[in-house]
């Protein structure tokens, strides 16, 4: 299909030297429910297709329609994906926030806004482009009820013209978004080109911002962490998923729902699927179902966020003590309580670590990228089944719900590890080998991990009775002090064993760094950037990203080897630091807290400032 493509607005003549190319940040300000997501991701995808490293962050309210929402698009030739504190360009479609937004524009920046906004522009030091949105929409003959939605396509067109975004790529992005539905693509593209033409004919570009094709995204993909996690789980052979809707986790289960029929058709029995997804009545039921399924021998999981995790407390304790494999994805949002349901956080770390009354220990995983969401999607099952214990994966809203440029997903590099499962013959064998001394909770191998049979096993010796009450190695009810202590001590041995299987920390070094940075999860992106900045200011740093609890011994080494260790995290209390303090008391005084929570992803600048100011002390 041949489509009209605009060709860039007239230039006011910024010399190439003065031009800012592929290194700036645009914020789109709209109201939610107006369909701006389509416009914004279209731009994001188009830039991605131009080969430019780009990232998008959606800051949206906890309602459905009519409140302010922001989308920030960062274009970074150096591949920085962290949040910036200032905007280079603001596209404003919402009168309610118009004045405020202007404050965030850097000097020399750009303001594009709908000329339906009749409020004063207060900044003199920026380029200002009012957009005749309604005029263009009328020209495009957009039906009344679609106007709000199409208004967003107007800014796509104008901005693309201003920045020189390739319309070929815009088209590709639309094609992807509308899954090839011609009518939708055409009508949107129509508005975009009309707007672009308007810009070409009416605007004079007097700002320095340009994009230029690169090849930095070749071979890469774009995905959100929740979809990646769901896909990873499907590749991990997930067999049973129970979930209850909650922002920002819903899209994880919804992605599984979407891809299940594509990826998990039974290759043997036609028309059948090898995974079941159940929307439960609440999170207690969701975890209960998953624990039941995990006990039954299925790769079972649930996904939730803070309030849901709180409700799963009792069941997680049961799973821990009955040694039932189950995977819980906690896509963190701002708590306590309902908190800010649509904002990102790393605030469930200590809670997840200590969840449940009595002495408990859990495998915690912290994916730091979309790709790792995919990887932990499958790996979590291997860990849960190998270790016969709950695995809690702590992702977050920023990672989970935003689109990220990523290396492609890798096919699992290991066969599925189902752990120590005994079917009919296996049981006979082990009974022979141990002179009849198999017991569900008996540690035969000395690694703290017993062997388990699964319901349906027809060997008359296979059955055992699981319970959250005291039991001995053979599953029998016991209240004896020594039995209780023995089993609980063995569980600690198992937790030690876990370190053999959990993902090692990822370490990035600089020469002569006496400063360490420790973190988990999505703060990886701003930390990368902050370290570059610090290095430029002469402060070399090493960075260790923790990927799992139990903590690896390497972490202690790392801390010991640095004079000061900054623990960077998105919460108020320095939760990761607290856990590190407990684990490495001998290095406790070397840990420093760099923690805050305000609903936004951390910026590199803030991290940098924190470290510098603490270093100055």
């Amino acid at each position, binding site marked *: 299909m041949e489509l009209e493509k605009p060709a860039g607005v007239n230039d006011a003549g910024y010399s190439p030297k003065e031009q800012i190319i592929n290194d700036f940040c645009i914020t789109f300000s709209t109201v939610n429910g107006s369909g701006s997501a389509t416009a914004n991701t279209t731009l994001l995808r188009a830039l991605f297709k131009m080969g430019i490293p780009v990232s998008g962050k959606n800051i949206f309210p906890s309602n459905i329609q009519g409140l302010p929402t922001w989308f920030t698009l960062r274009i970074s030739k150096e591949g920085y994906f962290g949040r910036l504190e200032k905007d280079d360009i603001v596209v404003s479609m919402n009168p309610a926030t118009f004045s405020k937004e202007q404050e965030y524009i850097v000097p020399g920046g750009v303001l594009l806004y709908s000329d339906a906004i009749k409020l004063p522009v207060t900044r003199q030091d920026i380029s200002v482009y009012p957009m005749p949105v309604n005029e263009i929409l009328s020209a495009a003959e957009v039906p009344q009820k679609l106007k709000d939605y199409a208004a967003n396509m107007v800014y796509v067109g104008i901005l693309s013209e201003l920045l020189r975004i390739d319309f070929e790529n815009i088209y590709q992005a639309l094609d992807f978004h509308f899954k090839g539905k011609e009518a939708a693509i055409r009508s949107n593209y129509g508005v975009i080109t009309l707007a672009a033409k308007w810009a070409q004919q009416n605007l004079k570009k007097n700002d320095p911002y340009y994009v230029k094709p690169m090849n930095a995204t070749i071979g890469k993909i774009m995905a959100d962490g929740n979809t990646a996690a769901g896909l990873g789980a499907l590749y991990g052979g997930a067999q049973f998923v129970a979930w209850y809707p909650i922002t920002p986790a819903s899209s994880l289960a919804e992605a599984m729902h979407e891809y299940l029929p594509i990826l998990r058709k039974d290759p043997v029995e036609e*028309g059948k699927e090898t995974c*079941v997804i159940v929307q439960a009545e609440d999170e207690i*039921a969701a975890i209960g*179902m998953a624990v039941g399924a*995990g006990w039954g021998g299925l790769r079972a999981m649930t996904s939730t966020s803070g309030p849901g995790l709180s409700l799963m407390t009792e069941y997680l304790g049961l799973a821990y003590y009955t040694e039932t494999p189950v995977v819980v994805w906690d896509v963190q949002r701002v708590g306590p309580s309902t908190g800010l349901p649509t904002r990102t956080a790393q605030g469930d770390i200590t809670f997840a670590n200590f969840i449940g009354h009595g002495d408990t220990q859990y495998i915690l995983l912290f994916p730091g990228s979309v790709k790792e969401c995919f990887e932990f999607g499958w790996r979590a099952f291997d860990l849960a089944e190998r270790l016969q214990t709950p695995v809690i994966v702590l992702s977050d809203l920023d990672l989970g719900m935003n689109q990220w440029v*990523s290396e492609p997903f890798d096919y699992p590099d290991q066969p599925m590890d189902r752990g120590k499962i005994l079917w009919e013959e296996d049981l006979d064998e082990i009974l022979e080998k141990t002179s009849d001394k198999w017991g569900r909770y008996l540690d035969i191998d000395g690694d703290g991990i017993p062997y388990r049979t699964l319901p349906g096993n027809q060997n008359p010796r*296979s059955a055992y009775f699981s319970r959250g009450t005291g039991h001995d190695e053979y599953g029998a009810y016991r209240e004896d002090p020594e039995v209780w202590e023995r089993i609980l001590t063995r569980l600690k041995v198992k937790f030690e064993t876990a370190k053999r299987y959990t993902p090692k920390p990822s370490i990035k070094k600089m020469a002569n760094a006496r400063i360490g940075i420790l973190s988990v999860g999505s703060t990886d992106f701003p930390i990368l950037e902050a370290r570059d900045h610090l290095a430029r200011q002469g402060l070399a740093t090493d960075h260790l990203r923790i990927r799992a609890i139990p903590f690896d011994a390497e972490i202690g080494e790392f801390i010991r080897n640095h004079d000061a260790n900054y623990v960077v995290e998105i919460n108020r209390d320095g939760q990761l630091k607290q856990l590190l303090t407990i684990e490495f008391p001998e290095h406790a005084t070397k840990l420093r807290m760099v923690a805050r929570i305000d609903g936004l992803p951390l910026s590199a600048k803030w991290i940098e400032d924190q470290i510098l100011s603490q270093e100055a002390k």
Partner: protein
Amino acid sequence: MATQILVPAAPQTNASGFTRNDYKGLPSTLCQGCGHNSIANQIIAACYELGIAPEKIIKFSGIGCSSKSPTYFLSRSFGFNGLHGRMPSLALGALFADHTLHGLGVSGDGDTASIGMGQFKHLVRRNMPMVYIVENNGVYGLTKGQFAPTAEKGLELKKHGKNVFQPVDICMEALASNATFVARSFAGDPKQVKELIKAAFSHNGIAVLDIISPCVTFHNHEDSVHSYVGGKAMEIPLHEVIYVPAREEIFVDDFLEGQTKEVTLHDGSIIRLKKLDKDYDPTDRHRALRMLDEAEKNNLLITGLFYIEPYRPSMFDLFPLPETPLNRLPEERLRPARESIDQLNKMMF
């Protein structure tokens, strides 16, 4: 004088070759005389008579004296004694592991109707195929005699005064949630209990059995329907329940025409209801609702099969499950083929 050789008599077996012993559990640690023990015995008897292999059953329970009882039957069956009030979700998940197994849940009135109300109702709504027995004694046994939500209005208990609230009617709750098999029985009527359990096992959907089961330690006042004496005195069976397995020949002339009603279950077996007093049609939900409404108003302990809908799809029927139990699927059937990853990556944009 001829020597007599003593051959130990071969223990009796059922049609599947199992002895009654194969269905037994550990010795009970409940109080002597507890209604739950007698229900446990009828579970053993029913399973023995049905001839289901014990390995083909999974037991579930919550927390309470009632919920302890699964250790006292079917030692050769897998079992999970879960959390208080949360057995339904556990059972649902576990049963998906192997849909060829029979699920048997045992709960208490506190476990089901107090803390467990929500999960119970949703399990029923989903028509999850399993037998769900509530051992209903009107009190919390294991925590020593507090009011359960099924306690009669006006009941007085030591330390807790008088119950001022309307009791929960478990059968009414099941019906409100569109249960497909709803029955009430009385631990003091073992034959009826047993026949109902057998029928429940043949039902393809949720089978709710609300069995009045006296707590001899904390709530056995003779004037209460939850006691042996009271229950016996007050029980009004709707009909005599007879379960006829699919494979058995049916002798119609055993019963006089017009005196029995038969319901054919999903697996071909038949429940024969022998008329006792008035006619009762257990396939009429509205009739069942009315009967419960009346029973409540007049404080009657009516027992029998209140409602059955044998052909509504069970929860399993709503999913495209393979014939092979899910928990036996090998890696090749679970992990998408290696080639697929490239295609998938192409979709990620």
